[in-house]
């Protein structure tokens, strides 16, 4: 058992050294990302679209709307009808010319 544990530890350390070396070499070559992605598994397709989560915890959504923490939650909801969009004072939205 002790021998097996020693073998496993050696295997773990040699694996770590091998993998770290591969990662370091890949980083210096232009295809580094491709090599890494090949080991990464399946890509989650939902992440192709940057829209909905891209602003979480980041500043890059500022001024672009659509961020979950932005205050545009009333879009398309009936409760705003006749009350001037999202205005909470009941005033009407200014009309575009």
């Amino acid at each position, binding site marked *: 058992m002790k021998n097996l544990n020693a073998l496993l530890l050696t295997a773990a350390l040699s694996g*770590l050294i091998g993998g770290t070396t591969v990662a370091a070499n890949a980083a210096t070559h232009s295809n580094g990302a491709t090599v890494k992605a090949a080991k990464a598994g399946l890509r989650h397709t939902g992440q192709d679209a940057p829209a909905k989560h891209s602003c979480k915890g980041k500043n890059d959504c500022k001024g672009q709307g659509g961020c979950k923490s932005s205050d545009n939650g009333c879009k398309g909801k009936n409760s705003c009808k006749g009350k001037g969009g999202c205005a909470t004072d009941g005033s009407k939205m200014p009309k575009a010319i």
Partner: protein
Amino acid sequence: MSQASMGLEEIQRAMASAVMMPLTADEDMRQHAPDGRAMTHVAAEFIAPNSRLTPFERLEIYNRQYWYRVLGALAEDFPAVRAVVGAKKFEALSVAYLAQHPSRSFTLRNLGSKLVEWLEAHPQFAGRRHALAVDMTRIEWAFVEAFDNPEHEPLTLEQIATLDADSRLAIQPHVRLMALNYAADEVTLSLHSREKRQASEAGVKHDDGEDAPVRLPRLRRRALWVAAHRVDLSVYYRRLEREEYLTLEAIRAGMPLGAALEAGFRDSRIPASGRPGRVSAWFGTWAELGWICTPDPGSLVRSQEG
């Protein structure tokens, strides 16, 4: 009490509890607060009327917007769970969950952080597909975490050279490990692709006709181990061997490397002769993906401290 006699904190607390109060079935603000007071009086305590709206009506707009926003955010983070339980049931589930776990953060990203545990304890909200829905909730929440959890500097060759059986390592926070009861990963990903396809075909997606749960092929219960993680700003998932998953969990739990390897092979059917090769391949892949890092400076190598 009137607004003039209320402090800022009191006004904020009164506003928050009113805004976070669940809506009626008709999506109106409730007539009474949980303590039995009429909401017309509660609203009048800290909101002035204007020429068009009463305090109740002005507060009701915020109350509705809070719920529309949080319900929309939760549905956005759990589209596969929503498809599997059905839109109507998912909304009821969301209202019940959010009533117990309202938004507590500046970002709605954290809204679903307790949903797995909550759904496990409330099977009535998921119906006959409860176990599958819990698995899918676990996966979809893991995708959220894998997307924006922190990433630390991976282990360097110099650090690896100092490791021994007593060393404690850490797993990158964006690597989310899951033990599932179904092949829920395949179902979730195919529902995400379907969702994406529908959204791009329709332009603007309508909810009409989506109330019923989506049809699924019969799924057999079987144990499955999966990791969701991030590579170059994209989220990936990898199936893991049971022993690989257990070793990663043991490392994450803070066990020394030697003990983590033992824990990984507890009750394993992999013959002893095949284990070193497996371990070498796992650690090689983890290192290549940068999954292994140090827990904190100074605690990496115990034997050097003592």
